[in-house]
């Protein structure tokens, strides 16, 4: 009936990413993601792990400097939150009204499965609005507004619903992780933005340990909260460490669809990490960009320059933080970003991991 190829064996290479994507972490409720990251890092890195009050997780790996020089500071950051929902009303019939956390196109909401983290456990629901039979001709052509949608959890009435959830309870899409496409080249899941970035950092730390590598600078890895609403935990991380360089690991929305002109496609799935020159929050350090692309070319690692000034991410805060930071963004090209069905390529996940490792080992910071 379905894609039967999703076996444990085939998933093994991306199991970490799957586990992170399936973890619950809407903006403002990222604790479970922080827990999962700490669990994944435990015993697999020599970095010093700390969790701070705002919700960030830090993994710090001191480098080896020559002749007592002060070590340069390089930060890798990825955000732990995902777009999600928060209940703002329970109506008399027991339906949940909600607001979105982060920029979600209302058109991807109706018909989706969602999970709310209630006080006694997770509560499953579906986002609904009236049946097509009751829609007027105009309504059938118009996107339903979020304020007109509701979540059906099966509650009999308000009192019944309040046994499970309350105003202020957070929710996310409920979407499994599916490997699909020719030769299993694509992955579908919620929260690929930005658990893929988190997975890249975890894999980088693991590889440094596995290869017994000591970097000639201090590496600050920051798993940060609240990117999706722009009130960034990454700013706090940058102000805490005041890094000389920062690399933001992200996901970026692309439009590599038929009939879209090449210059509007942003980037292409499968062509490697997307390096931004500029987006709506940052103009990036050109030397850092060029140096990175040079390393990618030398090492034969797929990478691509972002071909559209769109989106924005934690770099916007990091490059301005404290005395300013030379910042680079490396993003996974991701279709249908901020939906229950983000699609990214397994090959890009590999390329980005390779590129980050090569940059840490090859760029002259």
């Amino acid at each position, binding site marked *: *009936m*379905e*894609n039967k190829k999703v076996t444990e064996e085939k998933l093994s290479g991306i199991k970490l990413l799957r586990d992170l994507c399936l973890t619950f972490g809407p903006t403002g409720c990222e604790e479970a993601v922080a827990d999962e990251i700490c669990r994944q890092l435990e015993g697999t890195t020599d970095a010093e792990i700390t969790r701070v009050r705002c919700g960030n997780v830090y993994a710090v790996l001191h480098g080896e400097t020559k002749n007592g020089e002060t070590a340069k500071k390089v930060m890798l950051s990825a955000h732990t939150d995902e777009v999600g929902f928060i209940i703002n009303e329970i109506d008399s*019939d027991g*339906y949940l009204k909600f607001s979105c956390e982060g*920029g979600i196109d209302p*058109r*991807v909401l*109706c*018909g*989706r*499965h969602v999970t709310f983290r209630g006080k006694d456990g997770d509560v*499953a*629901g*579906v*986002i*609904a*609005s*009236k*049946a*097509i*039979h*009751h829609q007027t001709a105009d309504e*059938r*052509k*118009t*996107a*339903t507004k979020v304020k007109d949608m*509701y979540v*059906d*959890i*099966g*509650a*009999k009435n308000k009192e*019944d619903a309040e046994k*499970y959830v309350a105003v202020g309870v957070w929710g996310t899409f*409920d979407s499994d992780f599916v490997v*699909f*496409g*020719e030769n299993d*080249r*694509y992955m*579908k899941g919620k929260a690929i933005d930005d658990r893929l970035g988190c997975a890249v950092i975890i894999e980088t730390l693991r590889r440094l340990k596995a290869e017994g590598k000591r970097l000639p600078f201090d590496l600050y890895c920051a798993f940060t909260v609240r990117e999706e609403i722009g009130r960034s935990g990454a700013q706090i991380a940058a102000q805490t460490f005041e890094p000389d360089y920062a690399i933001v690991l992200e996901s970026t*929305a692309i*439009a590599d*669809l*038929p*009939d*879209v002109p090449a210059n*509007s496609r*942003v980037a292409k799935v499968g062509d490697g990490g997307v390096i931004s020159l500029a987006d709506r929050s940052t103009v990036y350090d050109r030397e850092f960009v060029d140096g990175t692309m040079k390393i990618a070319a030398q090492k034969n690692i797929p990478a691509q320059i972002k071909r*559209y000034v*769109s989106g924005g991410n934690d770099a916007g805060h990091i490059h301005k933080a404290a005395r300013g930071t030379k910042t680079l963004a490396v993003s996974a090209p991701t*279709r*249908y*970003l901020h*939906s*229950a*069905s983000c*699609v990214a390529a397994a090959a890009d996940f590999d390329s980005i991991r390779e590129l980050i490792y090569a940059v840490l080992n090859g760029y002259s910071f």
Partner: protein
Amino acid sequence: MSEIDLKQLIFDLAGLMSVSGSTAHDSKKLIDLIGGYFDEVHTGAVGNHLFIRRCGKENAPKILVDTHYDEIGMCVTQVKDDGFLTVTNIGGLDTRILQASEVTVYGRDADGNEHNIYGVVGSTPPHLQKPGDANKLKPIDELLIDTGYTKAELEKYVRVGTPVGFRPKYLELKNGLIAGKGFDDKSCGACAVAAIASTPHEELWGDVYLLFSSFEEDGAFMVGASAGAFAVDPVCALVADVNLAHTPDTKKNETVEVNGGVSVTWSPLTDKRLNRILMDEAKEKGIKTQLSVCPGGTGTNATVVGLVGRGIPTVDVGLPLKSMHTCTEVISMEDAAALRDIIALFITSRKIAEDLK
């Protein structure tokens, strides 16, 4: 009591691929799943499946139970570059739920072997949206299904007309509510199977013909039901279909209530005497019913079944369902059990048998 796990049977039946026009696609699976509960299984010229359970008496009257087996869906209109597909709707699909939904493309290789392909219905990133687009819903023919195939490989399995359905994925909500695709009308089909299969042959007042009719969702001709009813030529018919349930944005006088029990359609097209007997007996047995008032057509196969042949006294019973024609249709297991019980009542009621003599 039924030994059949009704919820599991609903999931199993609803999960089959039966997009209108392709009701033969999973015919073998359907017959494997429920054929064993019946004495005879037939397939008809227009995509119908007919399951017969005999009462054991000679020249017994024939009772028709109709549920439609077809479901809304899509079919491919173009195979595009990079493994994208365009589609059109089959039946009155609610297009609002399509973006970011997951689908199964029911492809076949050159030898006709099944080759199902997973797909995601794409959405448009904000930078490509023009001012004023924010409130517009894209029509279905502008949406793209992403399969992750190359065009050359995809064309080995998919062509214009290849059916596409929602990915079967089911969710259990609170209070016995369940959500998923294909409950319209295969949940009623499951209730009918459970009712008929759990009734001993000797308790039936006639031979029961369970029609899994095709082509209800085309909305115009309902040829499956009319051809099926004509072939059976029964003394009476019970049509079971899902019924639009109340949600906060609909009117109570245009909907029925989830957990309100089986809806009994009160319409010029349904038989008043059978309706009254059925409701009275349901009340005696503690089966919850609610009236569904339909001044014109019933919106179901009952609209055509009563007119077949020399006229067939018909009742129309409904299972309240929210979000009809989506991938997350919602029904209540309490209502489903009531529907099962009222169908069992219909096929065993001596009062109904008497009334039709």
